[in-house]
C-alpha cells in the first residue's frame, strides 16, 4: 500500500502506512539494504536507482522491486519516496543527499558519510535545513550484543570507562577484499584514506560514544604488511592501522588489521567497576571474572565463571535463532526500525548527529597522519 502525505507533507505519528523506500547505488552493499528493508513491517522497497541502469535492473529483478531507474531525479519525481538509502561511494553522498532532501525524502547513508568532516557538516546541515532526518549505517552498534552492552553501560555495570579497545579485522582475500585488490581503479583506492577510510567508522563509532565531549588526542600510524608485487595502484594502499586516542580521563586503542586470523571484530571496555568484552562476530558480550577467593583456589574459579557466562550467551543466541532474530544484518534491521520510527514520530534520530560528526573528525585526523599527501591534496571518490 502506498503512503499518502499529510496536509503538511509530513508523516503523522499515528500513520501506520508503509514508508516508501528507494535505494540509490546498486553495488554490493545495496543487497544488504534490500534484504533488510524487504522484511521490515513498516516499509516497502518501491524503487532502486543506479547511473548504470543494468545494475539497477538486476537489483530490482532479484528482490522483486517494482521500479528501477538510471536517474535519481526521475526516481524522486515519479516515486514520491519517504526515505532514500544512499549506497553509492561517499564522494557523491553530499550532492545526492541535497537532491533527496530537496525532493522531501529522508536519507539513510552508507559509511563513510563523506570524504571530509567539512562535507559531513554540510550534509547534515542540508538535512536539518530541509526539515528531514538522516542516519548512517553503523549497524554493528545495533546488533543484539551491542544493544545489551549499551544497557549494561546505562545500568552502571561497567562503571566509568577508563580504557577502550576497538579491533576490526579485514580479509583482503575475501569477497570485498578481492574486488578491491583486483581493481586498481576501484573507488576505495581513490579515497583520501583508502581502505581505512572505508572501514574505520566501525572503529571510532564504538569509541567516541564512550569518550567525554572534548576534542580527543589522536595518534595514528599505519603500514603495509603485504608485499608490493602487483605494480599497480593497489600497491599504494596501506593495510594495517593502529590509533591511540585520549579524551579527558578515557584512553583508547583502535586497530584495523588485515592479516591476523581469525578476522575479528571486537570491543573491550575497561571500566571502573567491570571489564566487558563484546565480540560482534560471535555475538557475545561478557564481563571479565574477578578473583574473589584467595590464593590458588581463587585462580581455579574464574575460567569456570567465564565458561558459564559464554554458555549463557550461547543459550541466548539459540533463543534468538529460534525466534528468527539472528540474521546477519540484525543490527541494520534494528537501526532502521528506530530510524523509521523517528521519522514517523518526528522524534530524535537513533544516532545523534554530533556523534556522527565527532567520528568524522577523528577520521580526518587519522587520514592526515597516515596519508599526509592525499589529505593535503584532497581526494575524489
Amino acid at each position: 500500500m502506498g503512503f499518502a502525505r499529510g496536509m503538511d507533507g509530513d508523516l503523522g505519528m499515528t500513520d501506520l502506512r508503509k514508508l516508501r523506500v528507494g535505494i540509490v547505488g546498486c553495488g554490493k552493499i545495496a543487497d544488504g539494504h534490500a534484504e533488510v528493508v524487504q522484511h521490515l513491517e513498516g516499509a516497502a522497497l518501491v524503487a532502486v536507482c543506479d547511473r548504470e541502469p543494468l545494475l539497477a535492473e538486476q537489483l530490482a529483478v532479484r528482490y522483486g522491486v517494482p521500479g528501477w531507474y538510471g536517474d535519481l531525479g526521475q526516481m524522486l519525481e515519479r516515486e514520491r519516496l519517504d526515505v532514500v538509502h544512499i549506497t553509492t561511494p561517499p564522494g557523491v553522498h553530499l550532492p545526492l543527499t541535497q537532491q533527496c532532501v530537496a525532493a522531501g525524502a529522508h536519507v539513510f547513508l552508507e559509511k563513510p558519510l563523506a570524504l571530509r568532516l567539512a562535507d559531513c557538516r554540510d550534509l547534515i546541515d542540508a538535512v536539518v535545513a530541509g526539515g528531514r532526518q538522516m542516519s548512517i549505517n553503523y549497524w554493528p552498534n545495533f546488533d543484539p550484543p551491542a544493544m545489551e552492552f549499551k544497557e549494561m553501560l546505562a545500568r552502571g555495570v561497567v562503571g566509568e570507562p577508563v580504557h577502550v579497545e576497538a579491533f576490526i579485522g579485514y580479509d583482503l582475500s575475501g569477497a570485498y577484499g578481492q574486488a578491491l585488490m583486483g581493481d586498481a581503479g576501484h573507488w576505495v583506492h581513490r579515497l583520501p584514506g583508502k581502505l581505512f577510510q572505508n572501514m574505520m567508522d566501525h572503529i571510532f563509532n564504538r569509541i567516541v560514544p564512550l569518550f567525554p565531549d572534548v576534542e580527543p588526542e589522536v595518534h595514528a600510524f599505519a603500514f603495509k604488511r603485504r608485499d608490493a608485487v602487483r605494480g599497480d595502484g593497489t600497491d599504494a594502499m596501506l593495510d594495517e592501522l593502529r590509533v591511540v586516542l585520549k579524551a579527558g580521563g578515557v584512553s583508547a586503542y583502535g586497530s584495523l588489521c588485515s592479516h591476523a586470523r581469525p578476522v575479528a571484530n571486537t570491543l573491550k571496555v575497561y571500566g571502573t567497576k567491570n571489564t566487558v568484552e563484546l565480540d560482534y562476530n560471535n555475538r557475545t558480550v561478557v564481563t571479565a571474572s574477578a578473583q574473589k577467593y584467595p590464593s590458588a583456589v581463587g585462580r581455579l574459579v574464574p575460567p569456570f565463571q567465564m565458561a558459564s557466562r559464554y554458555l549463557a550467551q550461547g543459550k541466548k543466541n539459540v533463543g534468538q535463532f529460534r525466534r528468527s532474530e539472528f540474521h546477519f544484518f540484525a543490527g541494520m534491521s534494528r537501526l532502521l526500525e528506530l530510524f523509521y520510527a523517528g521519522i514517523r514520530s518526528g522524534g530524535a534520530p537513533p544516532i545523534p548527529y554530533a556523534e556522527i560528526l565527532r567520528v568524522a573528525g577523528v577520521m580526518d585526523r587519522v587520514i592526515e597522519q597516515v596519508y599526509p599527501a592525499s589529505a593535503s591534496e584532497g581526494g575524489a571518490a
Partner: protein
Amino acid sequence: MKILVTGAGGFLGKLIVERLLAHGQTDIRCMLRDTSKAAGLQAIAARSPEARLEMVAVNLRNPAEIGPVLEGCGMVIHAAAALKGSPAEMFMDSVVASRNLLDAVAALHQESKTMRVVLVSSFGAMGVSALGRGAMVNENTPMETHPEWRDVYSYSKLRQEQLFWEYREKFKFELVVLRPGVIYGPGGGHFSNRVGLSLFGTFLHLGGSNLLPLTYVENCAEAIVVAALYPGADGQIYNVVDDDLVSSREYLGLYKKQVKPMRSVPVPYFALMWASRAVEGYSRRSKGQLPAIFTPYKTQAMWGGNKFSNAKLKTIGWRPVISTREGLARAFAAFRVEPEKAK
C-alpha cells in the same frame, strides 16, 4: 582476418587461442584484464612464431578502453565472464561489460559492416526447470523464465545473451552463440554443482545417475572456433557437450579412484526435493535468517536430470579433439597435484 578474443587469459580463453591457431588463424588480439596473467598465452605465442599474437590489457567495465582494441578486427569471440563475486560484480563483469563491448562493436560495424560476434553463453541460460526429468535439452529448449530464482551466474549469463540478440537485431552484425555445458579440464574446478556440494565438511552427492553435460575445455574451444569460422552459423545457437557422457555417479567414482579417496553421502532426488521445499519454507518464514540455498526450482534445474544433444554442432563439422575417457584421465591427473579452488 584479425580476431579479438576477450577473456583470452582464462581457463577457456587460452584454449580458444590455441584452437584458432590450429585452424590456421594467425592474427589474434588477446584481450585480458590483467596482462600479468598472460604467461599461458606467452607460452602459446612462443610455440607459434609464425603467428601474430597481441596482448592487450582492457577492463571491459571501462567503455573508453574498448573501441581502440576493436579497430581492424573482423571477429570478436567473447569469452570473458564473471564466475564468482557478489551479484553486482558478476553482473558488472558479465552483463555491463558485454553491453560496453556491444556498443563498441555496433559503432565499428556501422562503419565497416563486416563484423561477426561469437558469444560464449552457458547452459545456465536455458529453462530446464519446466522440463520433465529425463527430457532432452537441445538448441530448441527455451530460455530460463526466472533465472534470478536459480542463481546469479545463470541470471547474468541469460541477461548477457539477451543483450547480444537485442543488439544483433538492432545493428545487424553476425552473431553466433555457443552454450557450453560443464567445462572441465586441468586448471578447472574439480566438481560441478551438478555432481554435488560440500556442506559442513561433508560432500553431498546430489547428481545420482544423472548424465553430466561435460565438455573438455579443449573440445569446447574447438566447438567455439568451428562455429566461429563456419560461414552459415550466423544467427545460430550451438549447445556444446562431448560424446560418451558419464553420469554423476560415474564421475564421482572415478574421482575417488583416480584423484583421492573421499567420503560422500548420496542424496536421492526425492529427498533433495523434500529438503529443498523445507529449506525454502524455513528461509521465507524466518525472513531470510538462513539463505534458501536449495529451492525446488533450483533443484529441478540443477539435479532434475536431462539428456543432452550435440547433433547440431556436428552438422557443422565439430568433432571432439579428446575423448571423454581421455579428458577425464587428463583432468584427474592434474587434479591429483592441483589444490581444489574455492568456489
